[in-house]
């Protein structure tokens, strides 16, 4: 049994957790990361890879705007190519009412400094002549883009290690408790004493909060992802639709990654798997958007476990019950783009007790008095 005494213990090894470890080391604090399996292998590593501000809950936009700046320098910071490209994110309308949704959102987003370009059918087809007839208009966010989710989390974990953080993998946390002036965290093979505790446990964030008497209803969420064989360049932008039932992008190497609907998740064993009918459904919807993909072959599908909150925005902020405890979980299927900034915010909260970003909408107290579990359903917007 390894014993560690650190300033900050972090439960979870996703992108936000490892980014927090980096920021905390940069602030001079000692850090231990406790990850159940491998860092960046959960929701951080299996998501769509969208680096998107457009379409977010307005409460998330200030964080998302701040994170977007970090993405530009991420490969340099991590000394590793994370595959970020500002290809733009375009959200497609398949009806006039969809278009009205996009117009309303564009007005609201402008208030947060996010400029979106509304495209009618002619402008859209001029740029993307390969779109199918079902598409009637779109909203383009030119500064959004995509990146390789499989490498971002592990790269943050390695940087944290290089900076001196203790990164413990295959170390699922059994229990954590407030103990005198700090915390005691018991994980598989390692026991940690810390002054601060960060709960970045994803789908298990509610369980950790519960150890400290806080209600946080988290439902397991499993995105359903599919990828094609490498194809000639065609899909120039990351694509979503109003309603969120399908989303796709083409990687640098030519594979088209597409998602939509949900896989199955088992919170007990931590496994999530794609569902064949859902994959076939997303494939069919992709074809209505881009008929030219008809002959592409699908070579793989996957899922992963994320945590979803009833209001689809995460919990980020200090505990309401326990001094020294900070939460960041429940990103509800769209945490990838936020990961880098959430790391910074967590470090701010630990070191100063406050953040430069507005966190009020994400406070855990909004679920005080919440009764019972909830069942998550509906589309995951991209």
């Amino acid at each position, binding site marked *: 049994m390894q014993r560690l005494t650190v300033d900050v213990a972090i439960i979870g090894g996703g992108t936000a957790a490892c980014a927090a470890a980096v920021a905390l080391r940069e602030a001079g604090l000692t850090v231990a990361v406790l990850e159940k399996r491998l860092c960046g292998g959960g929701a951080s590593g299996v998501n769509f890879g969208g680096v998107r501000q457009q379409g977010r809950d307005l409460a998330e936009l200030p964080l998302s705007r701040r994170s977007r700046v970090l993405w530009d320098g991420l490969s340099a910071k991590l000394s590793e190519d994370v595959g970020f490209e500002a290809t733009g994110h375009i959200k497609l309308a398949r009806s006039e009412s969809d278009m009205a949704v996009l117009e309303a959102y564009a007005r609201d987003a402008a208030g947060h400094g996010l400029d979106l370009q509304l495209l009618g059918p002619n402008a859209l087809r001029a740029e993307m002549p390969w779109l199918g007839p079902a598409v009637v208009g779109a909203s383009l966010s030119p500064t959004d883009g995509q990146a390789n989710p499989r490498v971002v989390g592990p790269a943050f974990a390695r940087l944290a290690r290089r900076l001196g953080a203790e990164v413990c993998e295959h170390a699922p946390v059994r229990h954590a408790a407030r103990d005198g002036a700090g915390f005691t965290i018991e994980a598989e093979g390692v026991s940690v004493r810390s002054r601060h505790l960060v709960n970045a446990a994803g789908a298990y964030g509610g369980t950790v909060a519960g150890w400290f008497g806080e209600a946080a209803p988290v439902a397991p969420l499993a995105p359903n992802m599919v990828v094609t*064989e*490498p194809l000639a360049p065609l899909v120039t932008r990351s694509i979503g639709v109003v309603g969120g039932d399908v989303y796709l992008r083409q990687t640098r*190497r*030519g594979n088209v990654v597409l998602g939509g609907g949900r896989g199955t998740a088992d919170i007990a064993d931590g496994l999530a798997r794609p569902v064949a009918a859902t994959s076939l459904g997303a494939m069919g919807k992709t074809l209505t958007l881009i008929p030219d993909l*008809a*002959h*592409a*072959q699908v*070579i793989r599908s996957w899922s992963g476990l994320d945590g979803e909150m009833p209001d689809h925005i995460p919990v980020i902020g200090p505990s309401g019950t326990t001094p020294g405890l900070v939460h960041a979980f429940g990103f509800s299927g769209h945490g990838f783009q936020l990961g880098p900034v959430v790391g910074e915010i967590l470090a701010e909260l630990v070191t100063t007790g406050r953040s430069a970003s507005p966190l009020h909408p994400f406070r855990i107290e909004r679920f005080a008095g919440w009764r019972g579990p909830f069942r998550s359903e509906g589309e995951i917007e991209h």
Partner: protein
Amino acid sequence: MSGLFHRLATRPGAAIPFTIDGMSAEARAGDLLIAAILLHRHSLRRFEFGSGERAGYCLMGACQDCWVTLADGRRLRACTTPVEPGMAVITGGGDA
């Protein structure tokens, strides 16, 4: 035009006309597409991630190395697909 594969046993069966990169070729009923192509050529396709070409590998539908493209856009695994009259194979290769 001589290819990689080499027919050891002549057999009856209808002639199957098809094309490779626009050039007429002939196979026999019962020939797999991979065999039909490699009787005339030394490769099936370009490799996407580097120089060079590929000609298949396992012939049992496992390695997925022999996916070829037809002029009508269809993508076919050549080792599990019988050749059909009129197939227009595009190898994209420089192999003659």
